[in-house]
């Protein structure tokens, strides 16, 4: 109902705006005002933050050992707090030399001790994103030995000789943010390592500090005059929570905001022709997929799995209701990731699907598809439902909130799940390690964090190949391994990856160098000019 109302409102206002001329006003030249949905921010602590909007704030507030340059994202990670690093002969220890002359917003210098504290703290707090670090074998028991400061260096010792690029890519994630040890410990309560305080405050050394966060309302950030790259031109960044696409569009057209980040396709189409406004597309990491529960006696048949891959109208969807928001992509690694394949062999083919189903002896199949109550997902689900019906499969949609559907999905209770997956860190293992990795498929293993396990799929040998790829140090060889894994995955897996997200940011044409972070990282503001 809410979706219907939103659609109707969007359509109505879109129609009205399209016929009414409006002039662009302007925000001050040194202030960037961004409108987006920020009601997913639940904490500002980098050891805990794991949401999209929170990632944006964190990227601008906290520096990391290594990080991405928003003006050259293709170059991959570059030194930030680390000046340089060396890897031990056995490949398990990386020693970082800390750059001199960096300081936190408090004025305290950034030291190796702060790096040691921040990374140890992330492991010890054991919050949701801690797996990004603990997958290297760090634990509460060993972290004092595995992450160690010594003078102006910090050494990180992993339990296996992982690919260096894998470890460093993970350190660019939000959880790799380095906090000001002195400031944080000054606010420690009951041994929480400052977690309660850092949820709503900041203690970083990045381009901005958080001046205020009003949940579901706004985040105000102030430029750090001592930022090592120089004081950002935007001395204040104001991120306003504006839920409705039509409201974001109106405010952009009125000149009350500089950037609108959540416009729907109708509003993007409408605003594209407005003078003084430009729309910038960025490929994001989110994938839309369908998955077939392999505990189901029919869905586990290889011919049935294959048939389902021909029941999706990939082109039709991305050319109609997903136009501009998604592009066809049938691999578990998003484009721009190391080793990402651009092969998209499947297309809607009802005859072929019917033939495959017949070969598998399927007749009168009835399935339940779990889907979240989100406009784009519902439209995909309805499109799939129609195609399935044409092939003789009755699909019942179970629509619910994210939490409702996820609960069933994690408990392996759904026949088919329609959902989205976004990478956790900018390394291919982030997706390979969940789509194509499942060392123990038994119910008792309860590996609910792995998508392969949720669908009861034993990966047919891809688990071992994924494990081999993550320790391969040669970049070219590693990329080739992932390419091979994806080729096999496309043919044999019960996953039907359909599309990759495109983010369309509409902005005042005076805004230059804005970066939403593409598929690999979050938005950054220090380089923005007007």
């Amino acid at each position: 109902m809410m979706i219907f109302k939103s659609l109707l409102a969007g359509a109505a206002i879109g129609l009205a705006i399209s016929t009414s001329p409006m002039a662009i006003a302007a925000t001050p030249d040194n202030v960037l005002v961004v409108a987006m949905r920020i009601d997913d921010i639940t904490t500002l602590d980098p050891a805990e933050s794991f949401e999209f909007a929170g990632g944006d704030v964190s990227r601008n507030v906290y520096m990391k050992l290594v990080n991405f340059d928003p003006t050259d994202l293709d170059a991959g990670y570059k030194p930030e707090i680390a000046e340089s690093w060396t890897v031990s002969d056995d490949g398990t220890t990386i020693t970082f030399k800390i750059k001199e002359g960096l300081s936190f917003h408090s004025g305290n210098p950034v030291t190796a001790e702060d790096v040691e504290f921040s990374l140890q703290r992330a492991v010890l707090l054991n919050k949701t994103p801690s797996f990004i670090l603990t997958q290297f074998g760090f634990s509460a028991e060993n972290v004092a030995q595995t992450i160690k400061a010594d003078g102006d260096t910090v050494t990180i010792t992993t339990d296996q000789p992982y690919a260096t690029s894998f470890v460093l890519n993970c350190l660019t994630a939000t959880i790799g943010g380095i906090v000001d040890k002195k400031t944080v410990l000054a606010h420690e309560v009951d041994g929480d390592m400052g977690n309660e305080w850092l949820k709503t405050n900041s203690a970083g050394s990045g381009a901005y500090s958080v001046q205020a966060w009003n949940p579901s309302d706004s985040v105000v950030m102030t430029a750090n005059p001592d930022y090592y790259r120089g004081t950002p031109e935007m001395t204040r960044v104001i991120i306003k929570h504006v839920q409705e696409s039509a409201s974001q569009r109106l405010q952009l057209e009125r000149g009350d905001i500089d950037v609108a980040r959540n416009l729907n396709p109708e509003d993007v189409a409408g605003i594209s022709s407005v003078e003084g406004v430009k729309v910038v597309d960025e490929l994001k990491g989110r994938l839309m997929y369908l998955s077939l529960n392999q505990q189901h006696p029919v869905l586990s048949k290889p011919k049935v799995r294959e048939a389902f891959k021909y029941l999706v109208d990939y082109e039709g969807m991305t050319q109609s209701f997903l136009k501009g928001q998604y592009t066809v992509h049938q691999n578990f690694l998003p484009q721009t990731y190391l080793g990402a394949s651009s092969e998209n062999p499947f297309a809607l083919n009802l005859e072929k699907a019917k033939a495959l189903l017949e070969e598998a002896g399927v007749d009168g199949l009835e399935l339940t598809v779990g889907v979240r109550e989100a406009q784009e997902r519902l439209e995909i689900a309805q499109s799939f439902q129609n195609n399935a019906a044409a092939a003789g499969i009755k699909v019942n949609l179970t629509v619910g909130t994210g939490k409702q559907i996820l609960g069933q999905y994690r408990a392996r209770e759904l026949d088919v799940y329609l959902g989205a997956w976004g990478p956790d860190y900018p390394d291919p293992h982030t997706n390979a390690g969940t789509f194509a990795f499942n060392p123990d498929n038994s119910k008792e293993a309860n590996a609910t964090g792995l998508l392969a396990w949720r669908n009861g799929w034993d990966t047919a040998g891809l688990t071992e190949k994924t494990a081999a790829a993550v320790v391969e140090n040669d970049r070219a060889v590693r990329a080739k391994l992932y390419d091979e894994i994806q080729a096999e995955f496309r043919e044999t897996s019960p996953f039907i990856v359909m599309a990759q997200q495109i983010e369309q940011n509409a902005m005042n044409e005076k805004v230059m160098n804005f970066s939403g972070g593409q598929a690999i990282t979050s938005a950054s503001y220090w380089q923005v000019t007007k």
Partner: protein
Amino acid sequence: MVSVTSQPEEGRKSAPFPAWLRKFLTTCGSIAATMLGLLLVTFVIGRVMPIDPVLAIVGERASQESYDAVYHQLGLDKPLMVQFFYYLWDVLHGDFGNSLLTARPVSQDIARVFPATMELATLGVVIGMFLGIPMGVLSAVHRGTWIDQTIRVLTLVGYSMPIFWLGMMGLLLFYGILGWVGGPGRLDIFFEGLVPSVTGMVLVDALLAGDMDVFWNGFSHLILPASLLGYYSLAYISRMTRSFMLEQLSAEYITTARVKGLSERQVIWGHAFKNIRVQLVTVVALSYANLLEGSVLTEIIFSWPGIGSYITTALLSADMNAVLGGTVVVGLIFICLNILSDLLYKIFDPRAK
């Protein structure tokens, strides 16, 4: 006052408390029982809903160990009634717990979002009342004429038009095209933080600080959503007023008043209207209570950080502490408005004493 000595033969014992105290205690008991019932029902519904509060904390990617740890930490492994008594104990100590969504105490969140709703609802109901009542009276007095028909159409539009659509159109016309009012949000960004937050209501805080620029900017943002809510409540208030007035105008005492030669103004406002005030108190109080619950769609369209969207977002995210805290506030609103209505009855209708 109850006199004990006046009826000694019936063996009544001496009343331990004066009547007013007894009434006060009875009222308090009734409020406490209502609140307890409200909390219990909301708590149970929250726990049996197919939404997983643990997933809301640990996230989709969490391992089973992390999930189990939080499950235990939240006390969800305990029997439902035990969980409820723990919660009740905390509430009685003024602790509604922390919100999962905002990482802050729920009481602090409510102190932030409720004044925003209160400011909006108060202006909304004032607009609804001051336009709706005269329109209702006018409609009744000119029953069946073009005036009545025009008012009927206007109120019907307010009643039946989806509020989100009206909001969007209003925003487009008055903000987007004409530029007469402020856009979504409570203030222009450059006015935010200029006056200290004392009551949480922008207009009141601006007046307290004596900053008229902030006041007028806040007013320009408030007037459109408040008018929208006012229009919505106006429809209800004016329809009810018309109905009450028609009943009074057909009564014999009105004919008598006219026969006595009283002016039409005296007949309508001095006699008929006087007799519908008690009923109107209930109508206005109900309208106000509805607006104070928060109008989710209006809050979303106008990016108004009020209690309606707070509770709705909390509910969809399994943030039960926030839902329960919000429910207590909404419950208290209804109770307070009920008490206020009772007091107003006594002022408007001496028989109620």
